[in-house]
């Protein structure tokens, strides 16, 4: 009887110890002080990287074949549409090239420096298989070794995809712009009004807040990142287009819904912008009065 009670006590103790450990880890993670936890996750990401890549390499032909079978008509229509878009893009490239040449010549004429130098980019392959049903990030096959750091913006050819939230030596994880934790300063191009875009969950459009009631916003307008000082995004990255506008009398602002430009369901290759924001340096105030120095 006493032995059974001892076993029962030990079982409860073990369970309590495990639950307390889990709660302690959750607290550490929530407070963002999980340096060791992030390192452990990063190391695991690196360690399993080759397995993921190999699995992806093996599965890709089968996946493509399956997609080809089940969505042949869609693919054919998409192919025709892409050919049209490619022709338009080629014409645009020529026009943009001419404009860029003109701009550079003008800058040289007035002796001005280019205020917005091109941001270096790293192209990375998306590992096309989440490891969980509750995944909110995508995994890239490049990491710190390639210059990628936490906070860097990620975009596809269509527009902004999200930001890097974890970078290990050879891998990185990207939080998508639809994630509820995601927010970014944005600008409505036509009016020039700034707002804050926030994710609302997978498959849902973004919500832009702080757009004044007086501002005229029309569905179909383009929304880009505003790139205000200290923002993790440079100005001018395409976010999406306005789909809906609702006045919010309580807040005294409009609630603007924006559909992301990037197709987040079919990401194969993305570009990480090696951009680190210029955080203003702290101003050091000299305590000595100016007279004392003289």
């Amino acid at each position, binding site marked *: 009887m006493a032995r059974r009670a001892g076993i029962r006590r030990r*079982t409860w103790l073990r369970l309590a110890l*495990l639950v307390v*450990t*889990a709660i302690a880890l*959750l607290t550490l993670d929530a407070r963002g002080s999980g340096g060791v936890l992030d390192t452990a996750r990063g190391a*695991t990401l690196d360690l399993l990287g080759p*397995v993921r890549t190999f699995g992806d390499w093996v599965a890709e032909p089968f996946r493509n074949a399956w997609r080809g079978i089940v969505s042949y008509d869609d693919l054919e229509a998409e192919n025709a549409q892409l050919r049209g878009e490619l022709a338009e893009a080629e014409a645009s490239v020529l026009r943009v090239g001419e404009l860029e040449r003109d701009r550079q010549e003008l800058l040289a004429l007035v002796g001005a420096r280019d205020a917005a130098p091109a941001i270096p980019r790293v192209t990375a392959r998306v590992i096309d298989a989440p490891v969980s049903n509750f995944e909110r990030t995508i995994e890239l096959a490049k990491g710190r070794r390639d210059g990628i750091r936490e906070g860097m913006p990620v975009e596809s050819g269509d527009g902004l995809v999200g930001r890097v939230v974890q970078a290990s030596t050879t891998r990185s994880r990207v939080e998508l712009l639809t994630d509820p934790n995601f927010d970014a300063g944005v600008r409505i191009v036509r009016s020039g009004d700034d707002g804050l875009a926030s994710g609302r969950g997978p498959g849902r459009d973004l919500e832009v807040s702080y757009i004044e009631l007086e501002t005229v916003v029309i569905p179909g307008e383009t929304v880009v990142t505003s790139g205000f000082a200290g923002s993790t995004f440079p100005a001018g990255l395409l976010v999406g287009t306005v789909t809906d506008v609702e006045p919010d009398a309580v807040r005294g602002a409009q609630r603007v819904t924006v559909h992301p430009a990037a197709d987040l369901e079919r990401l194969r290759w993305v570009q990480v912008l090696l951009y680190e924001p210029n955080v203003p340096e702290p101003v050091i105030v000299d305590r000595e009065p100016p007279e004392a120095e003289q």
Partner: protein
Amino acid sequence: MMAGAGPLARSTLVLAVAVVVHVGLLAHITPAGVIVDPLVLLAVAGGMMGGRSTGASFGGGCGLASDLILHTPFGMSLLVLTLVGYLSGAITEQIPSAGRLARAAIASLLAAGGIGLFAGAGWLMDLVYVTEAPIVRIAIVTGVASLLTNPLLERATRWALIIRPRMTVSPESGARGG
């Protein structure tokens, strides 16, 4: 080589194999669009084979491994799979004489329940990407996967935890494996 190894080394090996199978193979095979998480199935099998105490520890190990590869809050899988392992052990202890098919059915229900527990934890932590996932579909597919793989997983956990087959005495033939 592992024949003389203790339960800790064996369990670590089983968990490592499960993680590799998970990220390298199961992440690419998605019946009804669902990824089957072998660590949930292992936590259930560990609890059913080892009882509530060993089940809690083995489930905790599964949870820790899961926390390392997922991007959910660190500790969430540890908490959920510890409870899954413990509850699996506690429930199985109430029905010690269940046959192989009954055990597989119980494992199936427990695995589906584990997904529900995970969703519940996600709801408590206000994780939209957990609560808005198709929980019922994930639970059904996980339950079916557990039903099909339970004999294999029981064997693996029995080896990992060094549990001898239960000996039952039959009047005619003496001792035999249960």
